[in-house]
């Protein structure tokens, strides 16, 4: 499991704009760099990030090899109802990780 730093509000007023920040530990190896022996290192990146709010996709990003290691993604959405917010990263070599937080909307 890769280490993740998440900042998600635990509570919000209905209709408020909430900001979420997600940072994940990942090498994001481009596939274009040779190693010390001159052999090309195989690509190893996260290629998709999805945020679901109560099951509904509210944010999705496609990541490319040009994105730096330990990608940081910040975005906003509108607090509609109490429920789980899940963050999913998918990448090469079967990389898949999901983190879930709960938000209470009043």
């Amino acid at each position, binding site marked *: 499991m890769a280490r993740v730093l998440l900042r998600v509000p635990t509570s919000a007023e209905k209709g408020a704009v909430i900001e979420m920040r997600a940072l994940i530990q990942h090498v994001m190896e481009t596939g274009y760099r040779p190693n010390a022996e001159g052999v090309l290192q195989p690509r190893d990146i996260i290629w998709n990030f999805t945020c679901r709010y109560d099951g509904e996709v509210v944010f999705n990003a496609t990541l490319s090899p040009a994105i730096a290691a330990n990608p940081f993604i*910040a975005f906003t959405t509108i607090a509609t109802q109490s429920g789980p917010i899940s963050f999913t990263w998918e990448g090469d070599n079967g990389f898949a990780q999901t983190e879930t937080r709960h938000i209470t909307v009043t």
Partner: protein
Amino acid sequence: MKRIIAALLACCSVAVAEERRSGLFDMRPEAQAMQRDDSMNPGMLWVLDGEALWGRKPNPAAQSCADCHGDAASSMRGVAARYPAFDAAQGAAIDLAGRIIQCRETRQGSAPLAREGQELLALTSYVAHQSRGLPIAPPDDAGMRAARAQGQSIYMTQLGQLDLSCAQCHDDNAGRRLAGSVIPQGHPTGYPIYRLEWQGVGSLQRRLRGCMVGVRAEPFAYGSAAFIAIEAFLMERARGMEVETPGIRP
């Protein structure tokens, strides 16, 4: 006239000495914000790794760091601000990473951690993070004086094909630009740092190697007495400045 110039120069040198600034303030605001906010600072990933390692036994027979040192938040507070320190057993100065390697070998009876390896960087980041916000306070003992003097002399020595000393950039031309980048004063306040260029965390010695390669000199070996001496001198030079670990640098 000469006297006026001398007086002006004296004023200038005093002003320079007072205006010590961390490399943090030489960065663009976005990068500064990245360091200040723990939810954006990727160096915190290494701190979290170190926290996990702190409580883990390196081998079933060994004790974990926490078994001896307890809660790092209290036992390790201020430790990084005092390193490098004099190690009586070796009769030489030792850096924080070197002390962790030593502990792992002699007290935990495990294989020594590799310099610049993920585990050592994580543990060093975690320990140094406990001193964040504290002033750098190098120890005043006699044993460190020789190391500091050696470090200062290396700092002043012109090295490599470009024939440049540390001082020629980081004292004489700090604040000016080398190509597109501001030359920082070179205070080791945030180590181990997350360097954007490295896309990862690295030690002060790795950073020093970068400068040595830059002036086309042959870098010292990791953990060598020469590197620890420079480190000791730089910490003395930065005495009283705040520890920032994990720092972000471009």
